[in-house]
């Protein structure tokens, strides 16, 4: 996955040496990963000055500007354990930092600007669903909730990224490491599965086939459901 990069043991050894304050290791780390960090910052911020500031700030965190009780620098590098590539981790750090900064700044800008989507192609906020009536067929709510819960996590993620965030297939493919044709195929399949499973659960609740299909076709737009309550809760904290 890495572009001809070092193996994981080598990377971890380098990280540990950096954490131990080995200057030669830091020089090696700088030579190898500083370009990754700065190019990622530029790709994400799309502005040279912002990117530079972002990357410098992160670089300082990685080096560690504070000292702990034992005289060791407190470095962000210590949180890297080698589950993925170091390059990927650095890129994700940049993305996280960028979003955190954006959200912090959002509290300082006027409300009308606050509604601007974070990412260019992000979907506009959905209308407040509270205006939907709660009198909508409760069996459909329940059936759809069950159907969504039965989907794989990645399929739910694809649905959210596509229908909620308005990301295109290529963007979702890049996010998930899938080809866009695979994303397209799985989205289509998920929609079909959702429909079938919703009808299945409706029929189990005593509804006829025709009635269930009609309900999905006509009442779907009127349904107010809270996915937070519908999706299976994550039992284990991530």
């Amino acid at each position: 996955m890495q572009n001809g990069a070092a193996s994981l043991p080598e990377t971890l050894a380098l990280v540990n040496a950096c954490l131990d304050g080995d200057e030669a290791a830091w020089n090696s780390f700088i030579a190898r990963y500083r370009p990754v960090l700065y190019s990622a910052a530029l790709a994400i911020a799309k502005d040279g000055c912002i990117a530079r500031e972002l990357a410098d700030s992160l670089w300082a965190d990685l080096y560690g500007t504070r000292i702990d009780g034992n005289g060791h620098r407190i470095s962000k590098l210590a949180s890297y354990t080698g589950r993925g590539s170091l390059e990927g981790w650095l890129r994700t750090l940049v993305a996280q930092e960028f979003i955190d900064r954006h959200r912090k700044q959002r509290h300082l800008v006027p409300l009308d600007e606050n509604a601007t989507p974070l990412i260019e192609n992000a979907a506009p906020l959905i209308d407040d669903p509270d205006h939907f009536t709660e009198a909508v067929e409760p069996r459909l709510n329940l059936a759809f909730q069950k159907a969504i819960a039965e989907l794989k996590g990645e399929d739910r993620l694809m649905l959210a990224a596509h229908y909620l965030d308005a990301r295109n297939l290529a963007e979702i493919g890049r996010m998930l490491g899938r080809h866009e044709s695979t994303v397209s195929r799985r989205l289509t399949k998920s929609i079909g599965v959702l429909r079938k499973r919703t009808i299945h659960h409706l029929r189990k609740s005593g509804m006829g086939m025709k009635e269930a299909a009609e309900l999905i076709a006509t009442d779907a737009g009127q349904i107010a459901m809270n996915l937070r309550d519908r999706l299976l809760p994550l039992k284990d904290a991530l």
Partner: protein
Amino acid sequence: MKEEKQMLPLLRSHLGRSHQAEIDGHCDAETLAAFAEQALDRAVQDRVAGHLSQCQNCRDVLALAAEATTAPSHGDRPATMRYIKGLYAAAALAVLCVAAVTFQHFKTPPPAPKQQRQAVASTNPPPSLNSVPPPAFSSRLTGAQAIEPVLAVPTPLWRVNASRSPATLEISYTSGRTWAPIRTPDFQPKSVAAEGANVWVADAKGTVLESTDLGLHWTRLARTLHPVSAR
């Protein structure tokens, strides 16, 4: 698509609520990076995907990090698939090659059994296959000697064809199916030995000639060997 149109409001309604959902905590950078690289266990991968389907913040981070990926490694599945297909094709080709070689091996009759070395000498170059005698002639040979060299590709076999007068040094490039004579006007070959491109022939008087180029050039080695008698 009809199905999609029908389900769209339902989806948006559900997913829209999750847009504002309060998620307890977010994925750390390393988890997200490992998720994007599919480096997590399948169960953890699915749990993270489930969290991501609920958490717009983490989805945004994942999407931005993916944008920053300069190398197209994440969307490389077609290349991976091409590579895997190439592997399958190479494996199939290897199987075909092995089958062809095996078939050819069993189709080819075994080389003539090793026999006694007889002496012969020649200054002729290796003959072409066009000059070989017919198989019927080879099968009538008596006292013919065949020695399988260790090296050389194609592996030549050597023998002294004593049924000819005078006896003739012969070479085969066809595992003994056909033989080509190497004439030796002033030398009566009695036995022959070979190893790769090196060939040694001796006559009944103990004279030994050596060739290092499959009989193209010969060098006299010694006259001190004991006389060889035909067995």
